[in-house]
């Protein structure tokens, strides 16, 4: 068998986590560099996977398959389709930036050298911070690669733990509260995050058990392997009763909807993103939450096509509510990070809308959206993080006129914002428009309502920009340094990527499309055909009125 590329892609960050954690307390810098190196190594591996992936090849590629827990019918099965490989690449791409952006975040937790030595020796926040980030990366990558439901579930759940410590353990002291209060708010947010997702996960566990029982009845031996289940379905040996399928679907979907998050299961996100440091917030919204939407595509639709179609109307409505609700609430936020969080809720609404519109534009757009939203939010949130760290406050009201003192920072912030409101020419526009078109072509009304979201997006982004960056320079803002080299190194590539993918998304689209088409074929849905397909008539030339009555088709 060939080199287990996918396993390696997941293993490298895991090893990196251990290595980073092992760095002695004294050498903080070493820990940081270790983490950065391993994350870059992962990036390289994922790039290799991206290259080796053949869009026209089979559905799952670079597959690995071993027995794991026979009694549970669990196999160690990895494989990526176009969607998976792209998202793995996205994850691997973002982590180095997150590490780089969080370079100094844990410093404030380091006990001053005066502290009691014994504790000082054992308490190693820096190592912990970066180790946890890498651990999360490993688990996320695994869940993108797993083609065995159980295997996926394990990492889907396990990743909560490191995330939980990241959120609860490392905040930016910018809440404008006493450290004690801040700590309470942090742990509240962390617990909320964990419980929401844990409950979702446990409900899913029930469904997973159910899936096992179902397969066990029909196939003799229970299995979680997507391929096997798909084959069994097509062979007709596996037939799930409608009610059962719907229940199972709900079990799965609930977990993913919490993770995504979909209104009204979203309330953990603002807290989590608000209380954690900016890089961690990016980790949550740009990386971890993607697992939820990704899983909807891969598991909900492919395992339970019928139930998915059955649930579609409700889900679409919820998605649209998320879009508008998130955007509207974002406008009212006083805290930069919470604002971005609600913006993300709105964006996840778009993604879910696209997935369940069940058109190739919708799902292709949704997948691109996952990528673009990852990058754009990262850009916006990380710059916001730099801003916050300078001022020591997250409150919009504490800023003003930054543009005057730190033009580059303001500029990058604006670009991030424009990406968030999906300005044409930047990557998110394409995905958002695809989602809208995809939805519109099947559900015009919903499409129109959702389109209103783009106005609201403009509203919250520009209000944020105006209040923080423009106007007379606030006294506290005076003398705020502009972006440093490290920070530029974080932001510039992201912005470049946004522009590039905005102008030439074809490479990604080409990888994604076949996977999307496959998903659609599973739920056997076809794109609605245009009413009057227009053949490209070479060149338009005006022909005087009267040759043909208006509405000639009547």
């Amino acid at each position, binding site marked *: 068998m060939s080199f287990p590329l996918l396993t390696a892609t997941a293993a490298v960050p895991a090893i990196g986590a251990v290595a980073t954690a092992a760095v002695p307390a004294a050498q903080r810098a070493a820990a940081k560099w270790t983490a950065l190196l391993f994350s870059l190594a992962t990036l390289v591996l994922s790039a290799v996977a991206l290259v080796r992936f053949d869009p026209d090849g089979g559905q799952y590629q670079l597959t690995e398959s071993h027995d794991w827990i026979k*009694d549970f019918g669990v196999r160690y099965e990895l494989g990526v389709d176009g969607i998976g490989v792209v998202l793995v690449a996205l994850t691997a791409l973002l982590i180095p930036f997150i590490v780089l952006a969080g370079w100094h975040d844990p410093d404030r937790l380091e006990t001053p050298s005066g502290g009691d030595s014994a504790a000082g020796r054992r308490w*190693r926040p820096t190592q912990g911070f970066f180790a946890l980030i890498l651990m999360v990366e490993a688990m996320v990558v695994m869940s993108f690669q797993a083609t065995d439901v159980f295997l996926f579930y*394990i990492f889907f*759940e396990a990743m909560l733990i490191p995330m939980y410590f990241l959120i*609860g353990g490392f905040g930016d002291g910018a809440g404008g509260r006493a450290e004690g209060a801040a700590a309470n708010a*942090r742990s509240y947010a962390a617990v909320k995050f964990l419980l929401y997702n*844990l409950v979702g996960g*446990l409900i899913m566990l029930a469904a997973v*058990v159910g899936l096992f*029982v179902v397969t066990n009845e029909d196939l003799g031996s229970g299995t979680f392997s997507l391929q096997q289940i798909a084959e069994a379905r097509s062979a007709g040996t596996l037939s799930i009763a409608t009610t059962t399928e719907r229940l199972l679907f709900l079990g799965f979907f609930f977990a993913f909807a919490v993770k995504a998050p979909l209104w009204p299961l979203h309330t953990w996100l603002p807290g989590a993103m608000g209380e954690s440091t900016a890089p961690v917030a990016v980790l949550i919204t740009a990386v971890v939450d993607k697992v939820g939407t990704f899983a909807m595509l891969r598991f909900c639709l492919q395992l339970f096509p019928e139930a998915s179609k059955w649930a579609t109307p409700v889900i679409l409505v919820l998605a649209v509510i998320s879009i508008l609700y998130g955007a509207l609430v974002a406008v009212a936020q006083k805290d930069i990070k919470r604002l971005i969080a609600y913006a993300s809720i709105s964006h996840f609404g778009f993604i879910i809308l696209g997935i369940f519109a069940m058109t190739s534009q919708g799902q292709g757009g949704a997948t691109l959206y996952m990528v673009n939203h990852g990058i754009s939010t990262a850009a916006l949130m990380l710059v916001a993080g730099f801003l916050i760290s300078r001022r020591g406050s997250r409150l919009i009201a504490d800023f003003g006129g930054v543009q005057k003192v730190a033009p580059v920072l303001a500029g990058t912030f604006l670009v991030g914002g424009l990406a968030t409101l999906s300005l044409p020419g930047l990557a998110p526009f394409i995905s958002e428009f695809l989602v809208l078109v995809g939805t519109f072509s099947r559900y015009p009304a919903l499409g129109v309502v959702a389109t209103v979201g783009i106005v609201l997006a403009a509203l919250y982004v520009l209000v944020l920009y105006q209040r923080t960056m423009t106007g007379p320079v606030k006294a506290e803002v005076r003398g705020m340094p502009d972006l440093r080299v490290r920070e530029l190194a974080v932001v510039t590539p992201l912005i470049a990527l946004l522009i590039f993918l905005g102008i030439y998304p074809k490479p990604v689209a080409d990888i994604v499309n076949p996977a999307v088409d496959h998903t659609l074929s599973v739920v056997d849905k076809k794109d609605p055909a245009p009413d009057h397909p227009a053949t490209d008539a070479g060149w338009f030339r005006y022909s005087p009125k009267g040759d043909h009555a208006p509405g000639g088709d009547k």
Partner: protein
Amino acid sequence: MSSAPSVHSLWMTAAGPRDKIPTPHIEYGQLSPVLIVVGAAVLGILVEAFLPRRQRYAAQLFVSVVSLAAAFAAVIALAAGDYGTSKAHVAAMGAIAVDGPALFLQGTILLVSLVAVFTFAERRLDPQTHGNRVDSFAAQPAAVPGGEAEEAAVRAGFTSTEVFPLLLFAVAGMLVFPAANDLLTLFVALEVFSLPLYILCALARRHRLLSQESAVKYFLLGAFSSAFLLFGIALLYGYAGTVTYSGIADVVDGQVSRVDPALAQTMGNDALLLIGGAMVLVGLLFKVGAVPFHMWTPDVYQGAPTPVTGFMAAATKVAAFGALLRLLYVVLPGLRWDWRPVLWGVAILTMLGGAVVAITQTDVKRLLAYSSIAHAGFILAGVIATNKDGVSSVLFYLAAYSFVTLGAFAVVTLVRDAGGEATQLSKWAGLGRRSPLVAAVFAVFLLAFAGIPLTSGFAGKFAVFKAAAEGGAGPLVVVGVIASAVAAFFYIRVIVLMFFNEPKADGPTVAVPSALTTSAIGIGVAVTLVLGVAPQYFLDLASQAGVFVR
């Protein structure tokens, strides 16, 4: 086994002419695990009697460790000799079954007790008194707390090394309990492992009043429950005319008509059987700590010396569930449609009750007590499955759970302040700052309790839920996950407390243990992770061991 009414075991020979008495035939080899432990226990008594104080500790430790290890080896040997599978049969003239479940559970119990011995023998945690290393047991349990007698004993450096033989006796009883193949043996075994536990509970060095109180409660309630058990046995006997499992089972299945028509027409129906079965169930449910027979658990767990608590929590559950399984799968399978609904109710009550009440606990040991109740509920879900997977999943869960519990309580012994162990949760605040390692280890155990993937807890939970679902108890699974969600909350709470709260100024210190406790905890962690990541081997073991002999 012949199904004649007047059969059976070694001690129940039919009345009749002398020459009819068969010479009892006993397979000593197959009973060796039990015999070894009992022998060692007796030896321990002798040690207490004849060795000078100074040498007892070492001797007792040696005896216990060696005997337990030997017994474990014996179990392995039996298993290797296919006594678990093909050669499984009933030994000692029908008194004791030697089959898969029995061997698996005996093995588990022996390992657990071995680890427990380590925690019993730990002498580094308490500060030395008068230059003597002391363990967690009272210098002179008979002495009045705080009285001169105790003072003297402490000054003299007495230690109650009797705990080791007591432990061994208890282990002996536990070994027999799940293997018992007739109700009398069941009862005797129950008492044999209960009585030493009652005493052990009373032996704490610190907080002696609590310790004694726990002993009283445990004893009285235990006796009460065993009375129920016994009466149930009596009724079953009255119904079937025999106390052997197989005999009763035959009658239940109607292969043998009930002996006494007079009784039949008076009682009319299976009242005897049903009531009897129910009362026996009560006795066993008490031991596993199922709601509403659980109320002793928190008090006893809290009051007993922590090593004892750990041992009880782990080993007793294993033994009791073993017995429960055998009773339900061997004696009463014919009655499935009667007891399953009842157990459904009990299981639901237990899962939810344990989880919900645990939320508001303020003492680590009580918290763990309630969590053990909740877990009893999960295991019951597996028991209810009444299929082969049910058995194996319960076996696996027990193995996984017992080590986590033992480890967790071992960690509790480490966190101490002036008054001994600091078990108030509030004192654990910021432990993660003071000693990240200990906190992390405890976090691992908590996560295992919570059933987070990649820990043994998850594998076990999945196994029992899977079995339950297959056994048509889907709703039970749903209740199960809800309960787990509730339970997750308080495990998380502890983690938050340890890692995210600022340490208190007068917070507890973490004692540096000797190799004994260290290894105990280490084993706990190892098993937790191994069973979490690569459970296949043990699952195979459990499923091979999943068949009861009749």
